[in-house]
């Protein structure tokens, strides 16, 4: 657990560092503009890139996904296969984000492909980044008892609750007395 928390801290420091760097450098001041004909509708600039350096976008995106990977791992039993499965899935999820970035580059260069109702990179967001977590969710649901909370844990928990109640009841009369 402590190792996971150290990784989480490191990732948060990277993200906070990038934000502070941008503030200090006075970067990222440009923002969306009012639509010329239909305000308060907005229009973006640079196809939505807003001038962010590519390296910073990759680092920020991967670090954010990293924080989610860490928080997803907490709660599973050590050594259970689901931990390895979540690790492998997280690598795939990061790759999906990288593919979205490449697809965005093509889109910004003028590609107009529409897939299942959305432009190609947006389709990767909707059908990829949004829906891909169903894989670990269904895996967790399937392996719930062995990976997360099963009859053995329930029995142990009942025992702790009963002991805690007995201990409180013992203390209560002695205080009254």
């Amino acid at each position: 657990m402590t190792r996971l928390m150290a990784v989480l801290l490191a990732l948060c420091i990277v993200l906070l560092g990038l934000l502070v760097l941008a503030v200090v450098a006075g970067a990222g001041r440009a923002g969306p503009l009012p639509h010329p004909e239909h305000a308060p509708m907005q229009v973006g600039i640079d196809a939505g890139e807003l001038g962010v350096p590519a390296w910073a976008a990759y680092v920020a995106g991967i670090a954010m996904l990293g924080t989610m990977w860490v928080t997803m791992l907490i709660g599973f039993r050590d050594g259970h296969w689901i931990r390895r499965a979540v690790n492998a899935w997280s690598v795939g999820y990061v790759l999906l984000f990288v593919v979205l970035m490449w697809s965005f580059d093509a889109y910004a260069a003028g590609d107009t492909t529409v897939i299942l109702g959305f432009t190609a990179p947006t389709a990767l967001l909707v059908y990829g980044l949004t829906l891909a977590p169903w894989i670990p969710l269904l895996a967790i649901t399937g392996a719930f008892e062995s990976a997360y909370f099963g009859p053995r844990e329930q029995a142990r928990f009942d025992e702790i609750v009963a002991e805690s109640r007995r201990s409180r009841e013992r203390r209560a009369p002695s205080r009254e007395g």
Partner: protein
Amino acid sequence: MEANRALITLLAVGAYLALCIGVGLWSLRRTKSTSDFFVAGRTLGMFVTAFAIFSSTMSGFGFVGGPGLMYSMGTSSIWILGTIVISNIIVLNLVAKRIRMVSELRECVSLPDVAAARYGKQSVRASVAVVILLGVLGYLATQILAMSIVLQGVLAEAGVLENPSLALCVAISCSVLIFYSVTGGIVASVYTDVIQGVIMVVASVLVFATVLGTFDGGLTEISRIVAADDRAAGGPWGTIGLVGGLAWFFVFGIGVAGQPHIITKFMMLRRMKELRYVIPVGVLAYSFAALLWIGIGFAMRALVITGGHPALATPDAASPEFLQVFTHPLLAGVVFAALLAAIMSTADAFLNIGTAAIMHDLPNAIRGRSLGNELAWARIITVLLAISAALVALYADDLVALLGVFGWGTFAAGLVPVIAIGLNWKRANALAANVAIASSLLVNFGLRSGFGFGTVRLPYGVDHGAAALLVSLVLFLSISFLTKPDPIPRDVERVMEL
């Protein structure tokens, strides 16, 4: 039927409000103790818990604000919706099991109770109660204002009253909210949530089908129109831009684990093993409801661009306008009821946790014991809190706006480290918890109000809540690493090991 559109909407909304009153009366007999009032006596089944969580999450923002964001910013807000599944896995892994176990172990009725049990310090209970109370006041006032505006529109359209005042609509909507929240406490709240959730899911699917019919070529044509008008709006980031979209993904993805109106629902679950299906069922419901958010907002943008509808005065008009102009009158009636349902389901959840903070947690933190006759006080405080929030909504709109947007980010920044991480990591201590909460308030209020000098704009459109969450996580984790861990009560420690 078209001629009776306004009347049908009024009847649907009236039927829904009557149903809420009925549920309030039904749950009165089931609310006999403080535990019943705040955590439904820990008797909720899987389906009820799943829908209570989904309904409380969705809120009026999902039905009005969300489509408004799609209309004004293009695809940006899909980064919020994109967290639906992953954020719920995080909730399951970080909070659900731990919060459910600690609450049964120590017979907790509120989140500050859980925090006090974990850290063994009343100062943490007080900090958590204060942050909840501040957020609740803003959220509740925002929800009350939203439901009153919806009701005002429905009454005016139907011609029942000539120019119904906002104060009258606040009085009507708050009366219903107060009635079922006072009589049935959280029991009424969660069972109305189930009705509200089912209405929302059905309405969203039907509205999405209507959206697909607004243009030949459906969503593909809508996307082409939006992208041809503005590359950014049809791309993956929308107009908020690349980093802004990612920042939303971060704060909504991880931040949900700190939303008290959502995570307290796990304390009400009857059996631990039912956690297995709570999250998948809730996520599925939310995914269907998201169709309305994406569909209406995107379609209205394309309609305005192509001249199919005049430009909207405000982005939030996207949803009501679409329903009035493009949907079947019966469907519009159901969706207006669903809209009210979404708002009220969030409002009643906040009313309940706000009441707990005032009458249970703050007295416990200050005096070391609860008020006598807690159930009676719970009902009195519920009324007073709702009236206070209604007055804030009516007479302090600047404060409503500030507190409303402040809510999610503050809960995320304050409660994710303290509750979600703290319940899993034994090194976390009370000092780190109190500093994290103080920083969440300071950074959020500071950035949003600029300490009186106007809102501070972060680079690349980064959300203030994301910055606050990063600061509080860094402080919480660093302090916990650098200082000695506090002793954890033995029973709580053993539960943390399970």
